[in-house]
């Protein structure tokens, strides 16, 4: 049953992604990206990643859509170039895709409990987290305690992005004063 759900959701995701790239009206493309984020949050729930689905729904379908619409309000609404097939990028994309499909032949089967990713560190986290840390949500315990340095770096990255946007877009007062001088 979940396999059927997975297949249906993934097919919808591919259709929506194709529509987002094909459409010339940028507002419609941004709405398609919102739908894409919600669908990917649903697929994450099917794959038992509830924390990730929560974050993707809030961030992708919420903040990201709002920021893109804000950018559209400050720039244009339509893509100007006529939609024509460009041959060289298509060739590059097809060759890269074929090489990647050839590379997936060695990958472990989906859902395999003995895959290499479940070998070294993950069983230690799953077995020892209730005893050493004692909170039920293992993702939070790994995020905040076992891998606390990474989360500190990530918070600094978000801080830097906020500072960057402030530097780029926050100085409208100076710009207005310059325009009045000219």
């Amino acid at each position, binding site marked *: 049953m979940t396999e059927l759900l997975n297949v249906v959701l993934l097919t919808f995701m591919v259709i929506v992604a194709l529509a987002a790239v094909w459409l010339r009206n940028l507002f419609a493309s941004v709405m398609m990206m919102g739908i894409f984020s919600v669908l990917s949050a649903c697929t994450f729930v099917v794959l038992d990643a509830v924390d990730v689905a929560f974050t993707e729904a809030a961030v992708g379908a919420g903040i990201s859509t709002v920021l893109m619409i804000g950018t559209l309000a400050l720039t244009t609404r339509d893509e100007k*170039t006529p939609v024509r097939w460009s041959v060289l990028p298509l060739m590059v994309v097809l060759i890269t895709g074929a090489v990647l499909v050839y590379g997936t032949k060695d990958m472990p089967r989906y859902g395999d409990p003995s*895959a290499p990713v479940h070998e070294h560190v993950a069983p230690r986290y799953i077995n020892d987290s209730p005893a050493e840390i004692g909170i039920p949500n293992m993702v939070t315990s790994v995020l905040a305690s076992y891998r606390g340095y990474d989360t500190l770096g990530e918070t600094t990255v978000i801080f830097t992005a906020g500072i960057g946007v402030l530097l780029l877009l926050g100085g409208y007062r100076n710009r207005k004063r310059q325009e009045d001088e000219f």
Partner: protein
Amino acid sequence: MNPGLYNYWIVIVLMMIGFYATIARGNLIKKIIGLNIFQTSVFYLYISMGKVSGGTAPIVGDGITSYSNPLPHVLILTAIVVGVATTALGLALVVRINEAYGTIEEDDIFSQDQAS
């Protein structure tokens, strides 16, 4: 053909759609949309590698023996938030480019740079 690899092929299809949008379209916002599609496909790849059949979400409960791997979830949670931060910075750059050149089409920006 192994049916257990269907997830990875869909990931590759989505990745290539995002890649095509980034390199073939001239509009800057379309490029950023392509990057977002690419990012989401990479997240899906990591999360589907962490799933264990018969396991549940990695939240400790009574009577559950098999959990999905929490490590990819932690990495992707970080990656999602960093992704939106970089998207916000990219969109801020697009707004400033529009104010400087009057357009967000790559060809027009190049021709304006050549002409000046």
